[in-house]
């Protein structure tokens, strides 16, 4: 077949779709994950830094809603599971506690799902998956997530951390600090890093403890300033 040239001699080229096999339109190939409720226990907290201020926020864990797992009945009804966890001191968060204004997508409830090849992946409203070159990358909106947790604490839906809990966390952090600082950190970058982390954890918790203590504002400010200078010295000395 000869080449079909145009009137002025240039080739007549047509648009060609090259290399597409429809892969981009296929559903993601991920393992499905079950629907879940989230729960927190008054003894479980995470230390979060925002705007230069440290605070304790509740640690949330997922309780899978699936028949046969941990008090879920054979039909997948989680009522008994919720009661059993509440008897152990857990607080199971209600879906309506996440308002539309709390979530990045502006929808109420804290569970989201999307379809994959073999079912659905369920995830928290503050996470999303992005397909990057065939790999599903998880992204979190931590700022918005932490703001939601703060609101739940402020409105009393979740209890504030008890001083005994902070004290227990502090004791554990100090034990860890002792262990970390008893290691020979010279020439051992990893040991030095762990010591830094342990020191920071202790000062962070002491700072949080100070903020909650029954001290005057001046006393609190002086104590926090002292703690921060101690931490700076420790970090500067490494």
């Amino acid at each position, binding site marked *: 077949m000869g080449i079909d040239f145009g009137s002025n001699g240039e080739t007549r080229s047509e648009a060609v779709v090259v290399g597409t096999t429809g892969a981009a339109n296929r559903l993601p190939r991920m393992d499905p*994950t*079950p629907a879940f409720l989230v*729960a927190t*226990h008054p*003894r*479980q907290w*995470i*230390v979060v830094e925002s705007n230069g201020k440290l605070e304790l926020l509740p*640690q*949330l*864990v*997922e*309780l*899978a809603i*699936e*028949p*046969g*797992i*941990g*008090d*879920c*009945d*054979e*039909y*997948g009804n989680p009522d*008994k599971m919720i009661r059993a*966890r509440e008897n*152990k*001191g*857990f607080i199971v968060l209600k879906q309506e506690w996440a308002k539309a204004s709390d979530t990045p997508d502006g929808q109420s409830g804290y569970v989201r799902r999307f379809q994959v090849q073999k079912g659905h992946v369920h*995830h*928290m409203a*503050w*996470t999303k998956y992005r397909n990057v070159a065939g790999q599903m990358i*998880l992204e*979190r909106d*931590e700022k918005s*997530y932490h703001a939601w947790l703060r609101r739940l604490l402020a409105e009393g839906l979740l209890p504030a951390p008890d001083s005994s809990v902070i004290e227990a966390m502090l004791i*554990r952090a100090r034990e*860890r600090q002792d*262990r*970390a600082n008893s*290691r*020979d950190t010279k020439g*051992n970058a*990893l*040991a030095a*890093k*762990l010591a830094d*982390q*342990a020191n920071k*954890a202790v000062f962070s918790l002491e700072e949080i403890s100070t903020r909650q203590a029954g001290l005057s504002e001046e006393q609190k400010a002086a104590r926090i300033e002292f703690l921060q200078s101690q931490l700076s010295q420790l970090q500067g000395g490494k």
Partner: protein
Amino acid sequence: MSNELLYSSMGDLELAAILNQELRLKLADRAALEVHPSIVLIGDVMGAGSTVIKTGFVGLDGYDAMSAVAEGSSSSNTALTDDAVSVTVARQALQRQISDLASIVNRGRMDPERLVADMVGAARMRKMAMLAALATSFTNTVGTSGSDMSVDDFFDGDIILNMASVPAEGRLAILHGRQIGDLRQSLRAESGALQWDQATVDMIKAAGPGLIARFLGYDIFQSSKCPAANTNADRAGMMLGAGALIYAEGTREPMIGDAAGVLAPGTKVWIGFERDEAGALTKVVGNYYIGVNIAEDARGVAVITDHE
């Protein structure tokens, strides 16, 4: 030149591809803990009249110690401490359907017989995933959200179990691969004598391929099934003492009306077959009846650490 014998011109004599006769398994986590002292089978609901098995705990044999009573004084009754935990058995299933033509062409490699074996593996992994999902229900936790797991976290968990008088024998840690990697990494910072015993063939034979080491008296089992925590920033593994987790099963025996079916040898997995003669199709359905729960909260600790 013309009429050369080129590969590209002999389409009638060539195959687009030939198949290797062996089908290789696609990479996946197939490590399921079959037998370990920390996971106890409490019964079978077959003929029990309920899907729920309740197991009782009683405070005897030293739970209540004697106390001094003055001479001439009367002793008084001490209440018996008891507790109970329930396990609800539910159906777990996997179904596949294969045509006769596909079975004929792939005889010996991909046919209903091969799918029977597939059902057993699927049931084992389902049990493992169900057990791993319990990690988030322990009230005691160690680890720091967003921070790599370290030897310190392991020590923290060990101390909690020791303080709860959990027996030293039969301890187990089920951890995510990321957690195990971080734990081993942090071992490099240790200067004292800590022994990470890589699993021997005998250990793997006893507990399955997921058992990767023994550390500080714990069997270390790696599982990708460890659930998420804190908006997927973390994974929840667990450290367990003997009898921390319980499970119950239901044996499905042959019944009137079964067209075809088999109880997979050595398992409680019932595999049924359903023929569609008009369509020349065979459905293979694996059914496994199981329920899992935490036996005693104090016998375990969740290990919640960074996942990334």
